[in-house]
């Protein structure tokens, strides 16, 4: 029999974060804790469907006038407009001047991919695959794959995390921007940097923006945690809005997976800010072509939930409240973990746990210590030392703190 055409297809390694969860599931130890995947958990360690989402889903289910017809290629208009408004602010000059647009996408990933595909085709010339794309070190590991698969040939890193001082390496970052070829694309985390939880301060953002403007660098924001990071939508969108006020044209890939808890409905939006209406319209028309060959038109359920919520003052208020509930629990777990480590006298400093923001914390644990945590203590975290604060509960805080203490003191 002729050999299969696929006989040479190699086995790909599993995606690390999902493998971690798979290993966790198979672990029979009753003390096990999953600090891996980035999804919110309640203090009972359970997924949480936001009360406002439940309410809106019931409204949708009861509405017999709704059907399952195709959405337009660019998505549900009420969703796109409201989603962009959330990112840019009600009083955004760009919205007033009608020079923004949105593309409803399959989660934040989908928004990044549509933006990347567009940039490869139309930015800095036509089909210029040589335009450098800069991604922070470290970053969400899928950023790299998105831009590679979109066809970019020159993916580079920019300094971000200073391991020694456990904070932002601003000078390294700015140096990289000074040295980057003009017109390079920079992927910026709008807030709650994944995985470090370390964001630039407003002053630092101003410095970043100044360099980017002078050197004609393109800002591509990834906003996956708006509201979830600080508890305030406006605060978490400060950087994006600052760049808009400074006159930048930019993209912002928004995800509603975390702040709406709509992970599996794949709700995202690519917000485009341009110089004027005409440019934005042409950009959207070309993005439409890209969407048409990727998924034709986006899924309706999640977009309906978000659009309904954002366009009703009462539901919007309820949503903000739900978001604050999540953000507050994360903040509480941060302070509780830090105080325990300090009380135990765990070597090192632990203020970074409360200074970092969002779902994740870069603990500073090294790979050997991480391995100890997993193998000996059945506490699952990424090899980078990244933990998901949502995996902490009042019940497991003591165990996790003690285990970190052991790992740091026993393993070097």
């Amino acid at each position, binding site marked *: 029999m002729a050999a299969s*055409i*696929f*006989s*040479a*297809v190699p*086995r*790909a390694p*599993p*995606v690390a974060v*999902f493998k971690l969860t798979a290993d966790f599931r198979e672990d029979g130890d009753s003390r096990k804790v999953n600090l891996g995947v980035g999804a919110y958990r309640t203090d009972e360690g359970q*997924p949480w469907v936001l009360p406002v*989402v*439940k309410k809106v*889903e019931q409204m949708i*289910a009861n509405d017999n006038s709704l059907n*399952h*017809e*195709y959405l337009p*290629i660019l998505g549900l208009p009420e969703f796109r407009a409201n989603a962009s408004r959330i990112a840019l602010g009600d009083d955004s*000059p760009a919205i007033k001047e009608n020079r923004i647009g949105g593309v409803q996408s399959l*989660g934040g*990933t989908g928004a990044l991919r549509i933006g990347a595909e567009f940039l490869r085709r139309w930015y*800095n*010339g*036509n*089909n*210029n695959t040589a335009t450098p794309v800069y991604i922070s070190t470290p970053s969400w590991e*899928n950023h790299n*794959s998105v831009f*590679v*698969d979109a066809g970019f040939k020159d993916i580079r890193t920019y300094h971000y995390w200073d391991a020694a001082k456990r904070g932002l390496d601003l000078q390294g970052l700015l140096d990289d921007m000074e040295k980057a070829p*003009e*017109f390079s694309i920079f992927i910026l985390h709008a807030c709650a940097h994944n995985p470090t939880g370390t964001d630039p301060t407003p002053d630092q953002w101003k410095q970043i923006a100044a360099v980017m403007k002078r050197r*004609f660098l393109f800002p591509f924001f990834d906003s996956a945690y708006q509201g979830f990071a600080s508890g305030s939508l406006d605060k978490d969108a400060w950087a994006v809005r600052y760049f808009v*006020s400074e*006159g930048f*044209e930019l993209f912002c890939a928004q995800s509603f997976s975390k702040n709406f808890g*709509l*992970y*599996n*409905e794949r709700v995202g939006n690519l917000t485009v800010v*341009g*110089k004027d209406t005409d*440019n934005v*319209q*042409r*950009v959207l028309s*070309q993005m439409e*072509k*890209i969407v*048409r*060959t*990727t*998924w*034709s*038109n*986006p*899924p*309706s*359920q999640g977009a309906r939930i978000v659009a309904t919520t954002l366009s009703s003052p009462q539901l919007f208020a309820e949503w903000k409240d739900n978001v604050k509930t999540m953000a507050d629990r994360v903040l509480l777990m941060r302070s509780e973990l830090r105080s325990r480590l300090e009380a135990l006298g765990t070597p090192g400093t632990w203020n970074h746990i409360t200074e970092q923001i969002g779902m994740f914390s870069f603990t500073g644990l090294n790979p050997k210590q991480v391995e100890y945590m997993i193998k000996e203590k059945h506490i699952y975290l990424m090899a980078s030392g990244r933990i998901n604060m949502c995996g902490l509960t009042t019940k497991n805080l003591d165990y996790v703190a003690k285990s970190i203490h052991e790992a740091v003191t026993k393993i070097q």
Partner: protein
Amino acid sequence: MALLYTRRLLATPRLVAAATRASSWWSHVEMGPPDPILGVTEAFKRDTNSKKMNLGVGAYRDDSGKPYVLNCVRKAEAMIASKKMDKEYLPIGGLADFTRASAELALGENSEVLKSGRYVTVQGISGTGSLRIGANFLQRFFKSSREVYLPKPSWGNHTPIFRDAGLQLQAYRYYDPKTCSLDFSGAMDDISKRNLLVYFDMAYQGFASGDINRDAWAVRYFIDQGINVLISQSYAKNMGLYGERAGAFTIICSNAEEAKRVESQLKILIRPMYSNPPLNGARIASIILNTPDIRKEWLVEVKGMADRIISMRTQLVSNLKKEGSSHNWQHITDQIGMFCFTGLKPEQVERLIKEFSIYMTKDGRISVAGVTSGNVGYLAHAIHQVTK
């Protein structure tokens, strides 16, 4: 206040010159041509003629011309609402109950392929997304050729999907405009090469003849003949789940071990596209396929849709005869599925639009789903007027 700045140009030949006024990054971005099918709907919407008909877009309509939400879909949705499930991420490959049931639907539950496990099925974003996953996979792993053969004509979106995936398009003869039917000898001539990779696009299983097994005959026959096919499935039409984007992509492999390797690579492709698929449509479809009495109801409903379309075809032909048309309209009832290639020429289509407010694409394709017992007479009359 927007700060205006001038851009310096990179000294590379590929960079298009920026506009001379203070400019946007996007000054050189051309307006994309309007989608021909959407353009039809747009024009239809603007038309104030009460007799207007939209025969452009391929979405099913009931005999009142309204969208139809299947009862089995409503039942599945009620079950979902009552269960209060969480919204956690699906695995990259999608909902397992859904993908397994999808494979069974396509291959037949007694398929040796299913028993041996020598296949992989991943959830895709309806038909388009499933096709695109396959196209990207072939571009990455099918080293024997870069050329994809599409029938002439084919769905308009096939070409850009494969092109965007990095493949090249060729055509094989398919439709004979003289007979308005299959150019079998032409197709055979163009297809007679060896070692062809076969990729089935199955968007209408059940919806075409009313019988899910009959509509899957070709796919199953090829597999029985030892051809390891690729399959893209859509639940947009046969379950009316259009906007929920429920679909699946399958590769038949030599053995289960190969299937695992292939699956791991599909995940690597999917993750940087959209990470993991949307749940809602897949969950509805899964409940329908996996719950015996709901599945039975679905089979009746999909047959109902197919029967209505077949009946509209029949009525259109008989109405044309009544109008006194001397042309041979047999192809209208010979053809199957949602669409009909009427054989009308662009000038005739133009007249139908302008004089009768009947909208269709320039190639003379009509969506039979847009025809009702209320307007079939008007349609026949109009067609006769422009063809007599």
